[in-house]
């Protein structure tokens, strides 16, 4: 088999990708492309990036052999890459640090970002606090309502969190808001996009900053077990943790790769966010060509997922390409299955996975037996699930938790009387 190219070909992965931006964004995108191409090969820049990953983010994150889960499922050996143990609790910090450092090199003083689950916003706010950059995060009103803890932390880091009240009030509208703000500001602002999508050079840049996940995994697995794993599984929102996890292995033909999308509540339009495993079709939206959940007239459809981070109508162009050539397979995991997987790994391994990452765990549970004993599956736990406590407690109908919330409000009110 011919080698798969890791970098885009002038912004394209096959027919996907590109830079379909309004004229107003062309100068900043060209400037960004030039800076990225220069610094990604610059020794000093890479040293600074790697130092920050080590001393501030806490890399390398562990690769854990999930012995108990392996035994209970009675199939392949299961390994977990624990990105949730990175500072701020998810893989998002790798990209945030990389782009924030790059922005500083470019002389930018201000960062804007979109966020869905709040994990990318949190990581960006954290990176900005550390690196002394001004930060504004756009977040859909619906997401603010379901991910309040992350809003609290972002504000603690000194970021301004701006609610987005238009459209579906979720991630895609936060991206629109950030693009609008970027076209309005002078050249002092960098838009720190959080997933491997958007106009070129973002898909290449985000993949490069996330590829540390795959490189570490390969080394750690080789050390612990020797050789290569048979299967890799990651959840897919826009695609940053998955492409960062996969890219190191793309040209290892023996390694099977699976992307888990949000199956939501059901198969009807608006009930899920499965683009590739579902009915995504080719479109040009938010600056890139890829597969989108849209109607016959090209209007994006609303999406649903129990996890805010996977609740998005498009998918990164490189993953769309890798699906098309059959290199990466896609599955769809239902909200209810995801909660079961979440509980299973908490009980067996003491791991609280993010609901996003629990999609990958759900897929792992389904195939572990089929893959079979003696084979190895590595799941990327892209983040930890502390942030989801309000959603999981509700999904698990934990009434004691909600009584606690009521009491807590009462205590607070009494204190302020």
């Amino acid at each position, binding site marked *: 088999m011919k080698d798969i190219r890791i970098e885009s070909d002038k912004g394209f992965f096959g027919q996907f990708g590109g830079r*379909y931006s309004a004229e107003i964004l062309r100068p900043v995108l060209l400037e960004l492309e030039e800076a990225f191409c220069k610094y990604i090969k610059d020794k000093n820049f890479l040293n600074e990036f790697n130092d920050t990953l080590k001393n501030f983010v806490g890399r390398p994150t562990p690769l854990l052999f999930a012995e108990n889960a392996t035994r209970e499922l009675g199939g392949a050996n299961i390994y977990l890459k624990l990105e949730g143990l990175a500072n701020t609790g998810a893989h998002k910090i790798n990209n945030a640090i990389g782009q924030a450092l790059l922005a500083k090199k470019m002389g930018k003083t201000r960062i804007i970002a979109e966020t869905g689950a709040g994990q990318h916003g949190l990581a960006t706010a954290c990176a900005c606090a550390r690196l002394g950059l001004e930060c504004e995060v756009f977040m859909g009103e619906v997401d603010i309502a379901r991910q309040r803890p992350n809003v609290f932390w972002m504000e603690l880091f000194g970021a301004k969190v701006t609610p987005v009240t238009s459209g579906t009030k979720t991630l895609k509208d936060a991206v629109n808001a950030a693009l609008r703000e970027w076209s309005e500001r002078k050249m002092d602002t960098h838009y720190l996009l959080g997933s491997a999508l958007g106009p070129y050079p973002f898909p290449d840049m985000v993949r490069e900053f996330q590829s540390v996940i795959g490189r570490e995994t390969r080394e750690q697995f080789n050390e612990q077990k020797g050789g290569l794993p048979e299967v890799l599984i990651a959840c897919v929102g826009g695609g940053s943790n998955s492409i960062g996890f996969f890219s190191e292995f793309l040209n290892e033909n023996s390694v099977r790769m699976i992307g888990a999308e949000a199956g939501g509540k059901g198969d009807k339009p608006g009930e899920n966010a499965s683009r590739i495993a579902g009915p995504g079709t080719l479109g040009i939206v938010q600056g890139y060509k890829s597969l989108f959940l849209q109607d016959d007239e090209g*209007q994006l459809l609303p999406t649903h997922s129990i996890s805010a981070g996977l609740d998005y109508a498009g998918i990164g162009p490189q993953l769309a390409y890798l699906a098309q050539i059959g290199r990466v397979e896609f599955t769809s995991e239902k909200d209810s299955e995801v909660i079961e997987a979440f509980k299973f790994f908490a009980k067996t391994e003491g791991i609280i996975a993010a609901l996003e990452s629990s999609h990958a765990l759900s897929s792992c549970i389904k195939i572990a037996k089929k893959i079979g004993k003696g084979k190895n599956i590595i799941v990327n736990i892209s983040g930890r699930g502390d942030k989801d406590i309000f959603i999981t407690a509700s999904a698990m109908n934990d009434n004691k938790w909600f009584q606690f919330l009521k009491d807590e409000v009462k205590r607070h009110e009494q204190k302020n009387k």
Partner: protein
Amino acid sequence: MNKKTNDKIKEIKNSGRIGFMGHVIAGFPDFSSSLQAAMGICEGGSDFLEIQFPFSDPTADGPTIEGACYKALENGFKIKDGFKLIEELNKKSDTIILIMTYANIIFKYGIENFVEKSVDAGASGLIIPDVPIERDEGLNEIASKNRIDNILIATPGDSAERIRELSKAGSGFLYTVARRGITGKKSEFNKEAKEWFELVKNNSTLPIAVGFGIRTKEQIRQLKDYCDIAIMGSHLVNIINDACQNKKDIKNELKLTVENLLN
């Protein structure tokens, strides 16, 4: 260049005035109101009318137009309604009609098909902000084959060379954005803006239209030194919205508004 547009701009230049382009969102707030609004703008004396086909993710638009697009979509706007609107207008007015929309709308429809339908309906040009000339999906060639203008957009930050490039690749006129950012906020024609208009004027080989943030007669008068056509978008959308909310005669309101601006 499309013949109607060409003749019109000649006439504007010869009479020493500045041309005017109004803007409506097809289907906002519903089909018949948008037709009434469009008729009013035409009867008020608008030379051109930009009809925006709503898209779910209009990233170049501010809250006014974005909100209007969502409203139109909520009320069931379909692309065929946009074409029907143009047909109806063409029966009653000779204002030149241009379609503005986003890449995904024409891409999903099929660019060739969309262009043909636009021509059949009687549109003279297309304005698609997120189709770059470097990768235009065949739009320029298809448009030129069908004798409809592919109107390109120049924005602050573009170099002299880029302006020449855009005016060479595009046709009809060069849609020049008055300031950075998105539609909506009022533009001040300060020193920076005037330098930008000069740069466009000195480098564009096409006629020039200026838009974004234009709300007053005074602004239109000021623009006369720099361009051939003044474009008014969000301000008219606000007036349409207001007329609907207050149950006024939409057509008459818009007609009076445009008449006032032009006299």
